[in-house]
């Protein structure tokens, strides 16, 4: 004789009973705490309309860390200003007046990497006497780049 099994009703979990004063799952329920109303939040951002504005400031900045020279080690990222002139992207390290440029940001980064390694090696060449400005440039380079062992 066939027996009919009544379907077990699905009871939604009681979240109120999950967290109690005696601990999770203790079975001791407490009344929900009614929180005081919170003041309306101030907006965390503002929108600026940049369309049609002219600015001498760089569009953005990036941190350079891809020194393409196995003999050199970068101690900290180099801050670069990014600007666009015509169809070319220019990356400028203002502190030492060094730059790299290219058809796009990636090409400009490669160009800058080459520039900075060539500059480093030249300023550290034996027998080269440097003027005050290039000594300053070399000093700043030494804060960012060192020779490997």
């Amino acid at each position, binding site marked *: 004789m066939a027996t009919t099994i009544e379907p077990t009703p699905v009871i939604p979990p009681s979240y109120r009973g999950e967290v109690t004063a005696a601990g999770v799952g203790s079975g001791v329920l407490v009344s929900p705490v009614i929180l005081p109303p919170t003041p309306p939040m101030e907006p965390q951002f503002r929108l600026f309309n940049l369309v049609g504005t002219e600015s001498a400031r760089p569009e953005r900045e990036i941190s350079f860390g891809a020194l393409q020279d196995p003999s050199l080690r970068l101690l900290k990222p180099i801050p670069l200003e990014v600007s666009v*002139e015509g169809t070319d992207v220019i990356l*400028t390290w203002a502190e030492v007046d060094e730059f790299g*440029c290219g058809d796009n940001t990636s090409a400009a980064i490669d160009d800058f990497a080459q520039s900075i390694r*060539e500059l480093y090696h030249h300023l550290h060449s034996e027998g080269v006497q440097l003027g005050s400005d290039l000594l300053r440039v070399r000093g700043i380079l030494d804060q960012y780049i060192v020779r490997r062992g």
Partner: protein
Amino acid sequence: MNAREFDTVVKKLGMETSDTKHHHAWLVHNGVTVVRTKRSHGKAKFVPERQICKQLHVDATQFTGLYSCSFSKDEYITHLIAKGIISKPT
């Protein structure tokens, strides 16, 4: 600024040049390297005027004077001395 103007200024100032990934130019005054600049290879390559002027310690007008011959090498050296890039002769 284009590559030809850059090369004209480099030649006029008698800068030492070296070619690696870039065309580098170094101004050596009394045995001391005082100024450096560079451009990419290729005549049609973009030459960023503002950045190169900063490396040469001149403004755009002075750079124009350098390649149009209204600003001589001697005047440029005097300008670098005034800016403290070259030590005053004793």
